[in-house]
């Protein structure tokens, strides 16, 4: 896992729906707490750039995509299950790793 690499997370939404807002809150929090490297979170509103849905193989909303580092990973849903999200992004949670 390239720690030096800047993480790029893209969150695909379709307008400001409660699910999307929740997803953004969740990923912002998890990233702040657990990603050791530098990271950016980019929010992509498909209502504004619909062509990206096909290009990036998006069908569910919200979808979080880990663009960098590779390989590409996708998590769909409002990201309310922290464990699952971290596992999906292949992040070892800082608190858990240090505490035990």
């Amino acid at each position, binding site marked *: 896992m390239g720690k030096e690499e800047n993480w790029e997370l893209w969150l695909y939404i379709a307008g400001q729906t409660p699910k999307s807002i929740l997803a953004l809150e969740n990923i912002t929090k998890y990233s702040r707490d657990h990603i050791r490297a530098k990271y950016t979170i980019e929010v992509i509103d498909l209502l504004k750039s619909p062509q990206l*849905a096909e290009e990036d193989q998006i069908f569910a909303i919200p979808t979080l995509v880990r663009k960098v580092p590779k390989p590409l990973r996708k998590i769909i849903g409002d990201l309310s299950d922290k464990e699952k999200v971290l596992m999906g992004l292949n992040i070892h949670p800082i608190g858990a790793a240090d505490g035990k």
Partner: protein
Amino acid sequence: MKDNKNIFPKTPTGVDGLNEITGGGFPKGRPTLICGSAGCGKTVLAIQFLIKGITEYNEPGVFMSFEESAKDLTQNVKSLGFDLEKLIAQKKLKVDFVRVERSEIQETGEYDLEGLFIRLNHAIDSIGAKRVVLDTIESLFSGLSNTGVLRSEIRRLFQWLRDKGVTTIITGERGDTTLTRQGLEEYVSDCVILLDFRVIEQIATRRLRIVKYRGSTHGTNEYPFLIDENGVSVLPITSLKLEHTTSSEIISTGLPGLDKLFSSGGYYRGNCTLITGAAGTAKTILAAYFALNSCKRKERVLYFSFEESPNQLLRNMLSVGINLNPYVKSKLLLIHSSRPSLHGLELHLLSLHKHIREFKPHTVIIDPISSLVTVGSRGEVGAMLARLMDMLKVHHISALFTSLTHEQPIDYNGSTEEAVSSLVDTWIKVRNEETKNERIRSLYIVKSRGMGHSSAVRDFIVTENGIKIMAAVSLPQEGQNGLEKTVAVSGNGLKHKF
């Protein structure tokens, strides 16, 4: 609903024969569900709907695939003569592959399929699509686990498609007890078509049935369909209504001696003629005369030969002085040979239909039609032949069928003869009678609608210069080596009142 005069607008299907069955096509601006087991031809039918929509009705289309990538799809339909790349380049067709791979996707918390809606909407708007195919949307269920969300979202999608006003085909894989695995038929209430692929007695047959078509009349039978190098075609059910116009023009049987037995001097144009007889009674020769005569009038003949290859047929006919070779060269005569066991009955008839449509003959010969019957189940024969003859009549094609009968009245053949003979206009029987030291060939007319005909049995001989019909045997007398005696000898079933 049926009383309602308001007829739903339809969108032509682009599939030969399917428009007739659906009363004009799929419901316009609504979704149609096409379901069936794997390999039954759902995708091919769907893609043909899009492509013909573009090439014949100038309606752009979106193909949203959940199973095959655009590249695979393009490759797979190339063998059917569909060039997707060209249409995509012309911005008439849009193929979007929605990749749903469970191993790549994590689900956590609430989501919806708005992304799919946006994607589809964008695809439709980018080319002004009027037709949409979703193939096979149920794949979502194998990629995602929240079936509750999927169900409500798919329901919403179908409603959205209706609101959008695009004519949509949704394909679905057949479930164990339901038409589709996820019960999509509950959501698509407009039109549901079931495809089926069966092997009966080692012969594969594809069939299509309209399970429901709200607000429209439709054929309720199972219709055989074919997938060949030109895509899908369904055996067209032209009217069985007997509405065709008839001709009173007379055409020759090809044999002056035979012409004389009809008061009119030949058959009506557009007639169906049946020649029945046992093996070796010169049925094919009589058929060849008819073909030759048509060629001489410069009218195209399509000759279906189920027992001989074209070369063999030409050679054999040449041996009795009928030279068809020049007409094959000048393309007035097309001989089409195939083994009866190659397909089932319906597919044979479907292929006959196709060839007739392509070649546009004035005369069609099927030699022998009894071969087809051996590959079909008894119940189907009558209806199938009726459809064929109806199609021939509608197109004013003169037809001649030969049919092999056995000496013994075997039930099977008996039914063939029955099935065919009631449909034809003219029925000629030929036969071989064995006397002490020779065989005598003879023929007589059993019936000929709309014209008087001789009731005499005429002996004939086959020479290297063709058939010679002998002078009428005047009333047979006792002791004469003639008809009365031979009939009495052969006895069974051949006795008719002349």
